[in-house]
């Protein structure tokens, strides 16, 4: 197993409140790792710590390390912009920019200084294709993204994240706000993407994890209870807590 991100002894705090408690495990490269656990257990905080989205909250603190390519991304010397180029994120609710489809996907490249029209066009097209939305929008790339359906918006957000060529894509319950058919489409996209990208997906839906995950990390009350191959966790969990969760005690 090739490792993409090494999580070492990661704790996170909002003010005095400890949200994550000494989490240590390796996130495998080019695979889907699902972060599961009951709501409020710190799953979201975990992924938002990886790309440092939570830095915006002034009372947010972390300790421990997250190693990407031998460097600690939590270090204050690690430039935020390049971190976020390397680790993309898709949010719970689709959050396209109130711009055209094209501008949404090209945004990341543009702010990182790519101006060449041909490169942009090519990248927008390939990203939209990878997110399996190209066929639906190719004739109307200047359409405002807010005119798309929820599922389409979410795939557009995936395309937007792909355009900057990240290595890791974080998804924070990406299907919780959209309908089952759109959910299926997004799951298919993610499975396809996992051939080239490291994917970390937070989900409270254990069936979803079963459908798409290669690895599962179970977090409970801010602690990592168990991490392993998906089929092992689902069929023969080592911890009683995991078993209880899977059988529905906490849901």
């Amino acid at each position, binding site marked *: 197993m090739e490792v993409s991100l090494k999580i070492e002894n990661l704790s996170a705090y909002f003010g005095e409140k400890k949200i994550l408690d000494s989490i240590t495990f390796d996130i495998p490269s080019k695979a889907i790792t699902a972060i599961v656990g009951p709501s409020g257990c710190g799953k979201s905080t975990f992924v938002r710590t990886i790309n440092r989205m939570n*830095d915006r909250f002034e009372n947010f603190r972390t300790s421990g390390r997250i190693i990407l390519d031998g460097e600690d991304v939590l270090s204050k010397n690690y430039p935020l912009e390049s971190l976020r180029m390397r680790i993309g994120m898709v949010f719970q609710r689709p959050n396209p920019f109130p711009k055209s489809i094209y501008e949404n996907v090209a945004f990341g490249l543009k702010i990182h200084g790519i101006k060449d029209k041909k490169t942009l066009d090519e990248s927008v097209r390939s990203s939209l294709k990878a997110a399996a939305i190209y066929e639906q929008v190719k004739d109307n790339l200047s359409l405002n993204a807010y005119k798309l359906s929820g599922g389409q918006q979410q795939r557009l957000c995936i395309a937007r994240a792909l355009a900057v060529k990240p290595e890791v894509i974080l998804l924070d319950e990406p299907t919780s706000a959209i309908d089952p058919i759109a959910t299926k489409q997004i799951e298919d996209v993610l499975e396809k993407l996992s051939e080239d990208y490291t994917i970390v997906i937070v989900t409270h839906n254990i069936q979803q994890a079963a459908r798409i995950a290669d690895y599962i990390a179970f977090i409970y009350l801010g602690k990592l209870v168990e991490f392993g191959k998906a089929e092992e966790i689902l069929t023969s969990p080592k911890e009683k807590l995991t078993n209880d969760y899977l059988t529905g005690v906490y849901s």
Partner: protein
Amino acid sequence: MLQKLGKGDVDIFSPHFKKNNVVDSVLWSSGWLSNVIIIAIIFFLFYNWVPLFKTVSPIEFFFGTRWYPTVTPPLYGTLPLLIATIEISLFSLILTFPISIVVTIFMTFIAPKKIRYLIKIFLEFFSSIPSVVLGLIGLSIVSPYLQNTFNLDTGLNVFNASLMLTFLTIPITASMMEDFMVSFPREQIEGAEALGATSIETLWKVILPGLKGPFASIAMLSMGRIFGETMIVLMIAGNAAIFPTSIFDPAKPLSATIAAEMGETAVGTPHFYALFGIGVIIFFITLFINLIGESIRIKYEMEMRRN
């Protein structure tokens, strides 16, 4: 180890903001522009006021009871002007406040939705009528009417000015009130209704007492606006620098004095300096009134957020 996150690259809303590039600096400077202007206003007002004290004592300026800038020797007592302003502002507020409440209650409780929407549009439109137009109405219609009906020496007086100021202020006062009324916590209203209160009882016993804070702040903000208004009082307060003893006396408020006399005085004369001194008085009193209004509003908003 508890590590504090990076200083140079924290995101939005963080207190550790550091300007990283030209754009940040430009935005940051624009943010400060209002401060710079306020300080510049204070500086230039004082700069053109202080030389007055070479010829006039501060006590005479603030407490002198006669404003006769054109007699020899000229007298620069601003007290009658200040009293006139206070009298007109208070009287106008006394009219504006209850009228605005009545209009607001009508809009929010009684009128059907469509009518309410129309009234809102009308108030917005009316509030954009320039004050000089209301001054014209006061001068050419209200004044002769008052003069004939009450058999007065002049219809240009405290009452007329206050009345037209009231028309100027009702639209904004009522629309501020309406904002608060509409956003009043639904649960509290339902709580009263669940106990069988009629809507008038809910209004009287729950909503209006609950809005005491915001309404106080609205009163202050309206007052701040009335206090410095110029064109209406310039045209219809009567332009007589006496202590108005009745609301049918003419008067000369602070702002009108500046507007009426600045054109006739030369730069660098004591009269010029005295007019800037009046500007100082208006500036600081409105600032004070607005600060009180603002702080009441902030206090109320914080209480609301806590609940």
